[in-house]
């Protein structure tokens, strides 16, 4: 696959950029934050779904477009530009891809078309206190009771947990706490007795929740994929979702960098614009280069995911490590080069900085991915 956008993708990117610019200014995020609502706008999500964005990855037989991650990536980049908090991660990249990949025919029938139309929100509860980025560190228990299962444990920072129409939960049906074998995925309604969902407030204001499971009883039909094989599914889906997250991060870093460049060209000190100072010029040029490299990597990993290439995991680690470091660099430099105004809540730079940090700590930070890369490369 060539590392250029196809004509269709160019068109999609243009539509997405225009839509986001007009309908989703960063001020919208600020209003959502201060409004204490769901963390995103259901009306906006409806509009995005009507543009076809929620169903890009959903197979055609379930009402989606059956397109690839490379297509979704151009949309997510546009969305990332203005930090739009709609539930792409929870519902499209995690929940939707997981059910499309591992769900039973009934589960797909029940959920996929609703995701494509924007009516259904999903949440994937995989993270626990101290599990950091390791998907095998699951201590939530699922005990067999005849045909049924009883779930107990606590999941943290479940994206859109409080908004979800269904939760997918990883729990241990066998093995020790760190064992990759013995993890099973369950699909359950949030109002199942014993489920408590407690909204959390994160630095980036994305909707996230604690999910407490206190002896929650679910039937055999709620298992997603094979019993005990959840880790493999989870790893693969999180890798694919990471591709999407990286595209969003690319959008975010590009925007904060553009804002910073504008400021370098307009703010004057000592009678000249600050962008004429070489100390700032060189640093800006370095941020620019890092973003260019991220763009190549994001295109390559999205193509590789769609083509099912065998070194996908390596490329995912490459993309996530790079985008994490570059987004943080771009936002740190962004705030620094704005001076005092960059430190104010009123200015957008801080919102990008917070999102950069949260995105870094989703699906593995740079150091975690470098370590994974080293392991995959045999050292």
């Amino acid at each position: 696959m060539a590392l250029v956008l196809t004509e269709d993708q160019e068109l999609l990117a243009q539509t997405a950029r225009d839509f986001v610019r007009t309908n989703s200014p960063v001020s919208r995020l600020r209003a959502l934050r201060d409004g204490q609502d769901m963390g995103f706008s259901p009306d906006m999500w409806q509009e995005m779904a009507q543009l076809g964005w929620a169903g890009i990855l959903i197979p055609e037989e379930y009402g989606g477009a059956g397109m690839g991650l490379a297509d979704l990536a151009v949309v997510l980049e546009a969305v990332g530009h203005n930090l739009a908090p709609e539930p792409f991660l929870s519902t499209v990249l995690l929940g939707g891809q997981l059910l499309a990949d591992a769900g039973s025919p009934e589960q797909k029938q029940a959920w996929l078309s609703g995701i494509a139309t924007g009516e259904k929100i999903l949440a994937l509860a995989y993270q626990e206190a101290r599990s950091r980025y390791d998907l095998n560190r699951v201590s939530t228990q699922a005990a067999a009771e005849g045909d049924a299962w009883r779930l107990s444990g606590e999941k943290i920072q479940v994206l859109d947990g409080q908004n979800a129409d269904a939760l997918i939960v990883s729990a241990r049906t066998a093995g020790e706490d760190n064992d990759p074998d013995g993890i099973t995925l369950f699909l359950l309604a949030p109002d199942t007795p014993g489920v408590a969902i407690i909204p959390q407030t994160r630095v980036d204001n994305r909707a996230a929740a604690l999910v407490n499971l206190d002896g929650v009883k679910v039937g055999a039909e709620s298992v997603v994929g094979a019993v005990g094989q959840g880790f493999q599914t989870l790893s693969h889906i999180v890798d694919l979702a990471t591709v999407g997250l990286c595209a969003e991060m690319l959008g975010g870093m590009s925007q904060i960098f553009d804002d910073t460049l504008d400021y370098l060209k307009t703010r004057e000190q000592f009678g000249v614009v600050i962008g004429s100072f070489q100390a700032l010029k060189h640093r800006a040029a370095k941020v620019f280069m890092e973003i260019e490299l991220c763009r190549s990597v994001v295109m390559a990993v999205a193509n590789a995911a769609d083509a099912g290439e065998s070194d996908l995991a390596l490329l995912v680690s490459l993309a996530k490590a790079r985008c994490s470091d570059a987004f943080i660099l771009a936002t740190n430099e962004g705030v620094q080069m704005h001076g005092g105004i960059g430190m104010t809540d009123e200015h957008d730079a801080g919102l990008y900085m917070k999102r950069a940090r949260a995105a870094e700590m989703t699906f593995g930070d740079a150091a975690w991915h470098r370590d994974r890369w080293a392991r995959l490369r045999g050292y």
Partner: protein
Amino acid sequence: MADLETFRAETHQWLDANAPASIRGVGNTLLDGNWGGRKARYPNPDMKVWLDVMAERGWTAPEWPTQYGGGGLSKDETKVLQQEMNTLRLPAPLIGFGLTMIGPTLLQYGTEEQKHEHLPGIIKGEIRWCQGYSEPGSGSDLASLKTRAILEGDHYVINGQKVWTSFANLADWMFMLVRTDPEAKKQEGITFLLVDMESPGVETRPIKLISGASPFCETFLTDVHTPAKNVIFEVNKGWTVAKSLLNHERNMIASAFGTTAGKGRTMRDWAKEHLGLDGDRVADSAIRDRMAQYEMDSRAFRLTTERARDAAKAGRPPGPESSMFKIYGTELNQRRLELLVSIAGPHALGWEGPGFEDVELTLTRDWLRSRGNTIEGGTSEIQLNIIAKRVLGLPD
């Protein structure tokens, strides 16, 4: 595409039939290999055989037009040729500034006569070129150069000094920048000239580098005569030519270092050998992290050069590639060597003599030499200036 596959099969067969056995597996890069020229020495005579068979087909300069002796291949065919050479582990038959710098510049700015005079010699590896740009007082501020050339009849008479002239002592011809109008604004009084190094009045003195090697020289020019027909493009318009050539140079330097990634294997094996194992992993986690960081950045860099090529093929306007690639490619090469030095530890301290293996001694020299990568061809700081100005639009 079917045509390309036919071309691939035929190329493979031809290469396999014509490449001498003793040159296979000989590694080389754009800066390390057979430079050709009248003074070339061939410790392995098969290298000369290899050069001659390839030059015969024009495949030392695969993309250059056939009327000058080039291969006349398309970009895609050239890529296939390169791939098949890699598959058979064949070194480039010829490298040097003729192929990478002055050749492309002549193709763009030379007259028909100049192209016919100089390109065949480059393609056949008969003439080796050196670059006379820098002077003692003019490095980054190249346009301030002072070497004078005055037209007397149908010759220019040149007086002045060049410095850091790579391989001037081994070169047959020099392309150089001279001042032809001292009154004009500094960029507007410069001319791009070709000079035969055997002309009376040319003297070269090798300078020793921190690596112990002497790859460059001081070049003194005293009443050197060169025919006026050796002006490239127009008199006093040499700066335009000079800048275009610098682009070729930066691309060359960048791709020279962008392609060393295959050596990652050596790095891993070295790390395991020097640092020991913790289970099946290199025992030192800090080194592991640096290795991963280096390998990732190097992969990202190669993907970015690929993206630039793909964009060019798709007819998208060229980006700021050459400056960015120059900075990034050279820094990667430095990081690679510093990392290898860290891995080798005290074994990387050898200069010569007993107690050190050859690979270790080479590493030490390569590491020292690599520090020049971010200086030669325009320093990293100058490249950052160019990106800030031309790409980001930041004011002076």
